[in-house]
């Protein structure tokens, strides 16, 4: 009996103990911080104010902690960043994305672009790309896609096919089509007071804004005059993507802007250029920024309109920005790159300095390029340095809180937690070393391993051109015959032959090739050679060549094809002029020469 008591008690206690042990909660496993980075002793801008110095721990593309990195960060690599400042990856809140824009931007610490008009075809992969946490050396893209304008209005002159509006009744379907294409928001052009170009009327502009709101997206507007801006405020616009520079805003406008809670992206950098005060030369001469510029960007920064317009007075724009800011209107930094005098990424640094000149504090100017664009364009995990935020970051030497130009002393740019330049695209796939003959068409239309010849036309952009390629006999060997019909269904028509990689992931490396040489004859005209950059977007780097009825050898120096990157070859195309008609040409001995 007594023994039984002992046994029962022992069994009961043991059972209870085992049961309790099974049920007792254990902490969630510490995150696997392999490849984590601790940026130690760093001053940081959290999106509103300078903080720190502290240790910012980054892993798996996110900011894991700020402060004591703790035991979790064992095995993380440690970077002593004393004296430096960590900024959220910068935004350029007004760009037009072409060619290498997204890569150029990252070079200058601009990890997100708010695009105010580009070819809708570019939007397809943009959302997946910006949501991904994979290492990348390309800026995230948020875009309006196509813009709302009228026939021959602003926006139609750039060679991108624009579906124009004729009246307010077009607005709902037009906005629905943009959302379908992947536009993140709607941009409209409203410049009814410009005498040189047609514009949407107020009724149609209002209908576009209302349709956008009805369909759950915001509507931002390009305006060029105080009057136009005032009218759109009443129409319910969400933001202005330029500040008008014809007049200084009056008190009534400022009051209305505050009341309507609009934001303003002044694009002072481009206004300065039109006013003959381009910031381009200063950026080229900057000891830190200059060396990072591509030749194409340098060329762009040197350009200007060559004359000063009375409707674009930088001082008036600065004064208006100062007044709006003082009244509490959010000001966002956007450069309007790649307009003349600006270039992707780099011009945000000039824009921030201009915002400080307009009266923003250095911290407010930094917020204008970080937390504010993130807030107004729904980039929820960007623009701030806080635990959980995406680790798109820029480490700069010095303190931009004391001197805004310190943002130009770029040390390291992190995209998704990986320093750009530290093998940013390990998932990119194979690299094809290319040299010598790319196509002699001796046997069939074969190309070197990993490459393939095919036809190309603007059908992929919704045009109606046609192309056909076939091998023909030429002397003892062969050549590639290209037969095309160029239509007028796309603003930038093309048709021709394309040499591309067989795998989407493969990137060609042209090594030390100096030029592309080939033999050609055909319908006489000026044809184009396009050299595609792998992963590039928009119009590819292009060179012109003349074709005659007689065979002739053409040599195009690679260095002359602005914007092309020989180690990131994504393909090449030999295409017709941009003029409707029938073109036939023959191509042979396409060769890379050293």
């Amino acid at each position: 009996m007594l023994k039984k008591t002992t046994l029962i008690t022992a069994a009961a206690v043991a059972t209870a103990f085992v049961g309790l042990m099974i049920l007792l909660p254990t902490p969630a496993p510490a995150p696997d911080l392999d490849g984590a980075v601790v940026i130690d002793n760093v001053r940081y801008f959290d999106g509103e104010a300078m903080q720190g110095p502290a240790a910012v721990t980054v892993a798996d593309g996110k900011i894991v902690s700020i402060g004591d990195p703790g035991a979790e960060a064992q095995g993380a690599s440690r970077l002593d960043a004393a004296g430096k400042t960590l900024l959220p990856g910068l935004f350029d809140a007004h760009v037009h994305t072409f060619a290498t824009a997204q890569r150029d931007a990252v070079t200058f610490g601009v990890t997100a672009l708010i695009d105010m008009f580009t070819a809708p075809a570019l939007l397809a992969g943009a959302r997946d790309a910006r949501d991904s946490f994979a290492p990348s050396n390309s800026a995230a893209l948020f875009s309006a896609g196509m813009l709302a304008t009228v026939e021959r209005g602003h926006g139609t002159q750039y060679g991108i096919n624009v579906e124009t509006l004729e009246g307010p009744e077009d607005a709902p379907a037009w906005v629905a089509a943009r959302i379908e294409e992947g536009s993140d928001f709607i941009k409209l052009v409203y410049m009814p007071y410009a005498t040189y170009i047609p514009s949407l009327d107020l009724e149609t502009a209002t209908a576009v804004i209302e349709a956008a709101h009805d369909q759950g997206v915001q509507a931002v507007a390009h305006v060029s005059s105080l009057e136009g801006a005032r009218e759109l405020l009443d129409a319910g616009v969400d933001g202005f993507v330029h500040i008008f520079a014809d007049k200084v805003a009056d008190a009534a406008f400022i009051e209305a802007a505050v009341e309507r809670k609009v934001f303003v992206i002044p694009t002072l950098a481009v206004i300065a250029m039109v006013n003959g005060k381009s910031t381009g030369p200063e950026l080229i001469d900057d000891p830190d920024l200059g060396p990072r510029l591509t030749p194409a960007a340098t060329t762009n920064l040197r350009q200007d309109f060559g004359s000063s317009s009375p409707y674009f007075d930088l001082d008036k724009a600065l004064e208006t920005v100062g007044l709006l800011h003082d009244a509490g209107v959010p000001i966002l930094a956007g450069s309007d790159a790649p307009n003349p005098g600006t270039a992707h990424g780099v011009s945000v640094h000039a824009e921030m300095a201009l915002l400080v000149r307009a009266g923003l504090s250095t911290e407010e100017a930094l917020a204008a390029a970080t937390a504010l664009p993130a807030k107004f364009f729904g980039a929820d995990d960007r623009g701030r340095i806080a635990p959980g935020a995406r680790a798109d970051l820029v480490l700069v030497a010095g303190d931009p809180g004391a001197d805004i130009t310190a943002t130009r002393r770029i040390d390291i740019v992190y995209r998704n937690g990986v320093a750009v330049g530290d093998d940013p695209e390990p998932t990119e796939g194979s690299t094809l070393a290319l040299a010598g003959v790319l196509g002699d068409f001796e046997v069939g239309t074969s190309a070197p391993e990993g490459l393939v010849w095919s036809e190309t036309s603007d059908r992929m952009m919704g045009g109606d051109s046609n192309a056909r390629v076939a091998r023909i006999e030429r002397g003892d060997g062969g050549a590639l015959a290209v037969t095309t019909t160029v239509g007028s269904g796309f603003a930038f028509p093309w048709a021709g032959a394309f040499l591309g990689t067989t795998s989407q992931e493969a990137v060609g490396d042209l090594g030390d090739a100096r030029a592309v040489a080939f033999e050609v004859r055909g319908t006489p005209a000026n044809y184009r050679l396009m050299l595609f950059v792998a992963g590039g977007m928009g119009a590819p780097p292009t060179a012109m060549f003349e074709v005659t009825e007689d065979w002739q050898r053409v040599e195009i120096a690679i260095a002359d094809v602005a914007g092309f990157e020989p180690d990131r070859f994504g393909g090449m195309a030999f295409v017709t002029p941009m003029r409707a008609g029938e073109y036939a040409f023959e191509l042979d001995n396409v060769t890379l020469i050293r």
Partner: protein
Amino acid sequence: MSRTYAGILAAETGAELTQSFRAPEFLLPTLALPVAFYMMFGVLMSRGGGAATYLLATYGIFAVMGPSLFGFGVGVAGERERGWLELKRAAPAPASTFIGAKLGATIAFAAMALMPIYAAAAFMGGVELPKTVWLTLFLVHLSAVFPFSLIGLSIGFSFSTNGAVAIANIVFLSFAVIGGLWFPATFFPGWMVAISNALPSFHLAEIALTVVDAPGDRIAGFHATVVAGMTLACAALAGWTWSRQR
């Protein structure tokens, strides 16, 4: 019934358990008081910041102290007073089963007192620990049975029942408070800390706090050495008071 040593030990332990189960004045305060205190200070009044975990470590020692001091101290004093000890010595059972049974029952009650505190910490205080830490903590807490039982035994051998109740209570409360089981010893003035350092409850709590990785610098090995030394001293004291019975 077998007359083996194990059989005698099991029977003796059963007797101890039965006796205690029939004594709510022992059972209730021993089992319910620690978890009630822990609920109040560790869960309800705790404002987060790891207090639930910190106090789990110290209240665990507190919970083990009750059955050890009172079971041994007051129990032995009563048995001695009633002449039961004399009878036991004459009985054909080894003397060690007398102590062994008491120890077994005390460990059982200590476990019963600990488990509700662990449950309260885990399911109401939000304490999360790796399984190995839960287990290690439990073993550390349970190991407190040994020094406190020896102290209880010394009290039981030295005082009458009434005296033992008073002395055990004084020891119990002072070990709890000054040992830093109710409030962290770091709140104490210097002179009190000096007293804390002389108490086994303080050093046991420090070991438990090391196990749960509570804030502060501790050297578990130092505290374990001190506890081992104190346990030996208590054993010597218990042996001496026991020998005085003859």
